[in-house]
Structure formats: structure tokens, C-alpha cells
């Protein structure tokens, strides 16, 4: 409202513009928030006028005892100076008339308290008698001669509002109403005088309606009432679409058809039932009742009322109007019985008018709504029967429920909406899965009824067929710009942010099986090894334990020890009764590193034959073991115990061992590749040599096997390329002497070279 006067032109301009914009914006926001009516000046003015009016009317009523205990109106503010003091009291005229007239008059008076008209109606009484078309006094904010107070007022409002959208009008109306027509300002006036006038008391309690809306822009305003000011939001990719009406909004009121119908039948309605109340509701405006009130008030738009018609329709009147719509017109009849005001300040419970405004409700309005429920047919039948019987019985209660002024605050649409939400939860694609017992119960009941009723006829039991709820795909594909790395994360309520981008690696069944098998086998082996280990540890600890245990228990301990060792060996055995070491088992165990260590630790504890057998098995399976043990370290643990075993071997056993080691064709070279293999070979040979050299009577030479074996070994050794001959862990010293027995000088030298056997022992 104020403009900067600045020297600098540019500055001025900018500031002005900015200010102007700001003002507009401010006003816009203001209007958004409070409605276009929340303009300071007017508010105050209006308020003042009302207060003045209040005083004025109080003067009228004089000292008529205020029987109704009302809270003193908070709006008793001394009128601002801007208001011309009322020169005359609103009247004597008021008192002259009869009830209906007075109601009308007062209504007009109240209506006149509107700012636009208040200026007019400083002489309020004039207005009451007014022939509507023109006023004697134009409203202060120079309107073109309004044809009617209401319209004039509206025009005034137009002027006041600065460029607000038409959408704002409705909100304006709400607030305007509340400030203009708070019951507080009016009621003391009316109530005290007309306490027995039901209309007044209703007005007292309810307050007066807001302005009837201009007929035209119903719907847009209607929408705005429910909808918050449109927010400016750019659509977010992946977000749910921006809705003009937020999702949780209950449906808007269906006004249009109501309007039409109400217009067509203005009724002479008489108000009944004086009300005792204690708490006038602060803001009676609500869309539904008020809308309807407005609608009902639209007859006000017309020229002079026929006498005797209550111009202001109270809630009760409206309710009655509705009822008249239903076809029970007129219901002007005796007052509904006043229920005793017993507990706590309740008004008599008037009950609710029939929920449907509009066409005459069919008598059987308790029908089950077929569009929202999916009941088992049997169930439905039962419910219908039940309802019908109840309908026949209970008619009297409906009578009482007619005149609740606040009924129907929740409209039919809203009820439907809630019901629909609740029914959505009951949707199911497979009722037999979701509600098995329900289905079966009703089927059984049906069968039973059929059986009872008519045993001959066998109908198929009716099945419930629910509409299949389509499962919608709600996957969200993240947006990805071409050429960029990764994807945009646009998280919204429908696609929450993915924390982990887990990718499923699909493997075929076969592969999986194989993998699983391998793993299972390995697990099995490890398990066996573990078990053996525990036994082994027991065995190893035997010594210690033996020392510690007293004499008596030593026997038992010994037994235990024996059994352990036996058990250990058993696991290596092929079959229970076969002493041979199972190759499979052995291999299995030795395939695992742990297993190898196990065997190396185990060997010393085994009784010699068993140990020999184990070593045999090792030798036999040398190639396989070698293959599995590419890193030579692990097998080498076996060297020591094996060496020990070898040394305890008999000659024939030794020969056997060597044979085993050589095994089939081509085994030896492979063995030679392995460090352990070579070592083992050397061990054997060395042992043999030792045997031979130490004991001239040894049976090593008895059969030619040993000799032949050695020969083949030497042949192999010479044949095998040096590269594939792995160096042994150690070279027994007597190998040279061994070889010297069996090979000629030349070969010996070659061997010597190859194997780096020196004459001098290490």
C-alpha cells in the first residue's frame, strides 16, 4: 500500500516493482492462507461494525433476561471511529412483527452486518423494510448501485480482492462468514428476545449461513475448498504423479444436483424444537450443511419473501427440507419430543436424515450394497433376510433421527470412500486360500439348509466368485542417461532407494549339482578327517595320561588306547574284515592337506603291519597323490614317519613296496616328478642297500625281484630327463653303493651325475 518515493529512478522503479510484486505476492499468500477475506482493514472494520451492531441490538432487547447462559461475546469491542454511530435503533420494527417476519428481518439485519452492507445499514432498520433492488445508502466503498444486498456485497468483495483467482472466492466466503456472522455476535441479541423462537435458538446455536455462492462457479470453488492451494512441483521421475488433490483427501461434496433440487422446491418450513445448549459451536460452517443452507437460502436471492416464510434455514429446517425431498412433506408437525437434557448438556438427539439426498429413497433402503462387498452367496442371502426382518421390526427409531442438525456431516460419498478403502483389504485373488474357513462354513451351511429344506433336490453349492485382482507390475526402472556411468537414483515412495545392487548369477541345475557334489564330498572328507583327528589326539595323549593315571586304571586306559588306534585304522580300511587299506579312503583323506598331516601323525602309532599297509597304499597311489600335491610341502611331512616305517619293513615287504611304487607303466616317472616320490624311492633303495650291506643273509636277493626292480629303477632314472626329476629332500648316502652293485661303471657315472650322488656322503 505504500510506495517508496526514491530519487533514483531506476531504484524507484525496481523497488516499486519489487514492492508491488511483493505486495501482490503477499496478498496472494495471504489469500491463500486466509482466504481473500482476510484483509486487515476490512476485517477490523467489519468486526467493529458487528460489535456495534451487537451493541445496538442489545439495546433493543434491553433488559430481557438472558436466560440462556451464553458466554459473553468476545467481540464487544468499542466501535472504531470510522463507523458512523448508528443513528437509529433497529426497530421497533422488529418488535412489531410476528415470529416469521421477525426472523426474516433479523436475518436480513444479520446479513446486513456484512461490511458492504453495514455501511448501508447503519440504519439497519431501513434495510429490513427494504425493497431490495436499490439501497438508499450506497455502501461506503462505492459500489455501483447493487441490485441486491447480497450481490452488491459480492461486488464489493470483488473490488476488495485484488486479482485473486476466482478460486479464492469460496475460501473468502468461509472466512468472511466466520468473521461476519459469528453466532456470538448475533445470538445474544436474538436469543434473549426470542428464546422461544426455535429459529432464533437455532441461529444462536448454529450461527448464520455464509453468503449463498454465486451460482456459476460452483464446482471450481467447491474443489478449492477441499484442495490446498496448488503447489508448484515439477514431476519427479519415478515419483507418483503430482496430484491436484492429495491422495488422502476425502471426496468432494456433490453439490450440483443437490442445488438443483433444492431450488425447485422452496418450502414453507417451520422451525421447531427450542434448543437448550451451552456451547455454541464456534464455526458452524461446514461444507455440507452450509452448502445446503446456502442452497436453501437461494430463495433469498429472490425478491420479497412471502410472509411467513423463514428466510434462514436452520439446520433443522434443512433437515426438514431434506425430508420433504424424500417425500414426507410437509413434516411441519408437532415438535419432536424433547429428550430430557439429562447428562451433560447434550442437545436432544435428533437423529440423522436419510443419508441420500435426492430421489426418494426406496423403502428398502437397507439393502446391501452390492458393489462393495464380495460375500459368499449364502452369506448374502442370510444377511438380506436378517435385514429384512429387522427392517420390518424397527421403524420407530427412524422417526427420532430426523432432526439432528449436525447429521450428515459425513456425506455419502465419504462413507463410500471409507468403506471402499476398508473393502480393498478384503480383496483377494484366491478366496479359498485367504479365507478358507469362511468359504467352507458357508458352503456347509448351504448344504445343510438344502438338505433340511429339500432333500431331493441337489443343487450345486454356490461358490463365491470374486473378481480377480490383477497384480500390477510396479517395477521401477531406474533412469539412466546414455553414456553415463551408473544409474540415477530417484527414490520416491514407490521405489525406495536400492542399497545393494545385487545381481543374481543364474547357474544351471547341472552345474549346481556338480558343484554341490564336489563340496559335499569335500565336506565329508573333512568331517572324517576331523573325527580321526580327535581320535588321534587321544592316542597321542595316551602317554601322558598313562603316566598320570593310577595303576588300576591303566589297564582300562590301555584298552582304550588300543581301541582308538584300531578305530583309526579302521577308517582307513576298505572293509571291515579286509586288512588292506582302502585306496579310496586313503586317497580321500590324503587329498586334503589335513588328511596328509593326519596320516603322518598317525603312522607312528599304528602297529607295524598296519603302518606298512598304509605306506604301501601311499606308494601305490603315489601318482595320484603327487598330482594332488603340486606343492610338495605337505607330502613331505610324511617322509619321516614313512622312513621310520620303511626301516622297520622286512625285505619282502620292502620289495613289495618298491614294486608298488613302480606300479604300472609310467608310474615311476610321475613319481619321480614329485619330491616326495623321489625321496620315497631313495628311502626304499637306501633301505634295501642297508639291508643288503648290513646283513649278508638278508633275503632281499632271494628272488630276483629286488634286483629287477632296482634295474628298472635305474633305467628309469637314466631315462627320465633331468628337468622332470625333482630333487629329493635328502639323498641317502648309500645310494651310490647300491647303484654300484647293479649298474656298470658308465651308467653309474651318469647316474651319479644326474642324481648328484657323490661318493662322499652328506
Amino acid at each position, binding site marked *: 500500500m505504500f510506495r517508496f518515493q526514491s530519487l533514483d529512478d531506476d531504484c524507484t522503479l525496481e523497488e516499486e516493482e519489487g514492492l508491488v510484486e511483493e505486495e501482490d505476492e503477499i496478498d496472494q499468500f495471504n489469500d491463500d492462507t486466509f482466504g481473500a477475506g482476510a484483509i486487515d482493514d476490512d476485517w477490523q472494520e467489519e468486526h467493529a461494525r458487528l460489535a456495534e451492531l451487537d451493541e445496538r441490538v442489545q439495546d433493543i432487547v434491553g433488559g430481557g433476561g438472558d436466560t440462556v447462559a451464553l458466554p459473553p461475546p468476545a467481540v464487544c469491542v468499542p466501535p472504531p471511529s470510522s463507523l458512523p454511530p448508528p443513528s437509529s435503533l433497529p426497530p421497533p420494527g422488529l418488535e412489531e412483527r410476528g415470529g416469521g417476519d421477525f426472523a426474516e428481518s433479523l436475518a436480513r439485519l444479520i446479513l446486513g452486518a456484512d461490511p458492504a452492507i453495514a455501511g448501508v445499514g447503519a440504519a439497519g432498520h431501513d434495510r429490513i423494510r427494504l425493497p431490495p433492488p436499490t439501497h438508499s445508502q450506497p455502501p461506503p466503498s462505492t459500489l455501483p448501485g447493487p441490485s441486491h444486498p447480497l450481490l452488491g456485497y459480492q461486488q464489493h468483495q470483488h473490488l476488495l480482492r485484488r486479482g485473486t483467482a476466482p478460486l479464492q472466492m469460496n475460501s473468502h466466503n468461509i472466512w468472511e462468514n466466520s468473521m461476519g456472522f459469528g453466532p456470538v455476535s448475533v445470538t445474544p441479541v436474538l436469543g434473549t428476545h426470542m428464546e422461544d423462537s426455535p429459529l432464533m435458538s437455532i441461529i444462536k446455536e448454529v450461527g448464520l449461513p455464509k453468503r449463498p455462492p454465486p451460482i456459476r462457479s460452483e464446482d471450481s470453488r467447491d474443489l478449492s475448498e477441499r484442495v490446498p492451494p496448488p503447489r508448484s512441483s515439477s514431476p519427479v521421475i519415478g515419483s507418483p504423479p503430482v496430484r491436484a488433490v492429495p491422495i488422502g483427501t476425502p471426496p468432494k461434496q456433490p453439490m450440483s444436483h443437490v442445488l438443483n433440487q433444492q431450488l425447485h422446491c422452496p418450502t414453507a418450513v417451520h422451525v421447531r424444537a427450542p434448543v437448550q445448549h451451552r456451547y455454541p459451536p464456534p464455526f458452524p460452517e461446514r461444507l455440507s450443511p452450509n452448502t445446503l443452507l446456502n442452497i436453501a437460502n437461494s430463495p433469498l436471492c429472490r425478491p420479497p419473501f412471502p410472509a411467513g416464510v423463514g428466510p434462514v434455514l436452520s439446520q433443522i429446517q434443512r433437515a426438514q427440507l431434506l425430508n420433504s425431498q424424500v417425500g414426507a412433506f410437509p413434516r411441519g408437525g408437532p415438535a419432536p419430543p424433547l429428550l430430557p437434557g439429562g*447428562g451433560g448438556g447434550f442437545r436432544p438427539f435428533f437423529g440423522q436424515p436419510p443419508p441420500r439426498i435426492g430421489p426418494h429413497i426406496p423403502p428398502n433402503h437397507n439393502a446391501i450394497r452390492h458393489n462393495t462387498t464380495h460375500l459368499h452367496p449364502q452369506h448374502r442371502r442370510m444377511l438380506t433376510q436378517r435385514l429384512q426382518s429387522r427392517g420390518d421390526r424397527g421403524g420407530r427409531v427412524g422417526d427420532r433421527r430426523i432432526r439432528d442438525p*449436525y447429521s450428515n456431516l459425513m456425506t455419502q460419498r465419504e462413507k463410500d470412500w*471409507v468403506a471402499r478403502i476398508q473393502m480393498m483389504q478384503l480383496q483377494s485373488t484366491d478366496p479359498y486360500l485367504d479365507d478358507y474357513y469362511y468359504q467352507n462354513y458357508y458352503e456347509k451351511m448351504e448344504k445343510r439348509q438344502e438338505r433340511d429344506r429339500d432333500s431331493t433336490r441337489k443343487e450345486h453349492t454356490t461358490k463365491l466368485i470374486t473378481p480377480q485382482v490383477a497384480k500390477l507390475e510396479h517395477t521401477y526402472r531406474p533412469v539412466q542417461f546414455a553414456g553415463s556411468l551408473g544409474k540415477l537414483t530417484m527414490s520416491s515412495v514407490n521405489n525406495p532407494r536400492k542399497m545393494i545392487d545385487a545381481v543374481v548369477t543364474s547357474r544351471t541345475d547341472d552345474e549346481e549339482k556338480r558343484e554341490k557334489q564336489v563340496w559335499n564330498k569335500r565336506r565329508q572328507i573333512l568331517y572324517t578327517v576331523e573325527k580321526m583327528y580327535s581320535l588321534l589326539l587321544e592316542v597321542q595323549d595316551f602317554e601322558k595320561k598313562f603316566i598320570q593315571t593310577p595303576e588300576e586304571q591303566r589297564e582300562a586306559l590301555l584298552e582304550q588306547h588300543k581301541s582308538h588306534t584300531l578305530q583309526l585304522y579302521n577308517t582307513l580300511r576298505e572293509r571291515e574284515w579286509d586288512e588292506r587299506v582302502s585306496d579310496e579312503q586313503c586317497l580321500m583323506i590324503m587329498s586334503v592337506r589335513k588328511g596328509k598331516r593326519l596320516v603322518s601323525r598317525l603312522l607312528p602309532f599304528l602297529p607295524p603291519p598296519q603302518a606298512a599297509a598304509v605306506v604301501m597304499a601311499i606308494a601305490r597311489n603315489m601318482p595320484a597323490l603327487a598330482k594332488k600335491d603340486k606343492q610338495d610341502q605337505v607330502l613331505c611331512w610324511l617322509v619321516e614317519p614313512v622312513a621310520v616305517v620303511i626301516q622297520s619293513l622286512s625285505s619282502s615287504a620292502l620289495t613289495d613296496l618298491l614294486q608298488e611304487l613302480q606300479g604300472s607303466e609310467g608310474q615311476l616317472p610321475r613319481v619321480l616328478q614329485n619330491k616326495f616320490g623321489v625321496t620315497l624311492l631313495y628311502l626304499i633303495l637306501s633301505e634295501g642297500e642297508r639291508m643288503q650291506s648290513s646283513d649278508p643273509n638278508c633275503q632281499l636277493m632271494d628272488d630276483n625281484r629286488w634286483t629287477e626292480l632296482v634295474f628298472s629303477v635305474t633305467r628309469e632314472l637314466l631315462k627320465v630327463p633331468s628337468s622332470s626329476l625333482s630333487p629329493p629332500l635328502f639323498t641317502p648316502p648309500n645310494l651310490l653303493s647300491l647303484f654300484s652293485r647293479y649298474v656298470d661303471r658308465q651308467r653309474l657315472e651318469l647316474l651319479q651325475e644326474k642324481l648328484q650322488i657323490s661318493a662322499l656322503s652328506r
Partner: protein
Amino acid sequence: MNYMPGTASLIEDIDKKHLVLLRDGRTLIGFLRSIDQFANLVLHQTVERIHVGKKYGDIPRGIFIVRGENVVLLGEIDLEKEYDTVLKQVSIEEILEEQRAQQQTKVEAERAKLQALKERGLSIPRPDVLDEY
């Protein structure tokens, strides 16, 4: 009008007088005007009724909007049966006084109990520090 036969719904209870018991122990009586899918209630002309012994007092409260989760139970009041009750209505001041006295005795009893237990070496945690469930 039967909205959802075979189900329990508050829709048929609209515009009827109800007694609502809240989780904090208050008793409200009002006309149920509106509901929503969470059973949030709009109560009109609500009165908070305080019961102490055989007496009760009503405090008028106006319009209540109750969040659904705070409702323990609610039920329609039969208007005919509403008034034949053995309970005696008293004024607000009196009932508040009675309530205060009742609270007092309860607190004292509780304290005495705690004391007795403490003497015996036992302790019961206070309900307000316990978890609700």
C-alpha cells in the same frame, strides 16, 4: 444402509451417540460425526465423563478429534437406557475433587506397598518404566 455386511464398520455408527474409552483412561461421550480408514473419530458435543465410585461428572469439551490408535473401545449409547443408571451425576467440581481423592488414596497405597516390599528386599518396577507390552 448396510455398507459392509459381514464386517464390522463404524459407518453405521455415524451420527449416533457413542461412548469412547481412550487409552489414557478418559471416557468421552459424543456424537460420532466422521471417521476415516484409521478409525480416527470426530466426536461432536463431546463430554468427558469422570467416574468415581457411584458418582460421575461431565465436563463438556466440544469437538474432539481422536486419533484411531488411542481408542480402546467405543460403543453406541442406547438413548433410552442412557438415563436409567444407578450412577449419580454430580457437579464437575465435586467429581474432580473425588477423583483427586481417589488418586491420592491410590498413590498412598502404592507407596505403602512399595515400602513394604522394599523392607522385604523385593522391588517391583514402576509401571511407567516398564515396556507397554
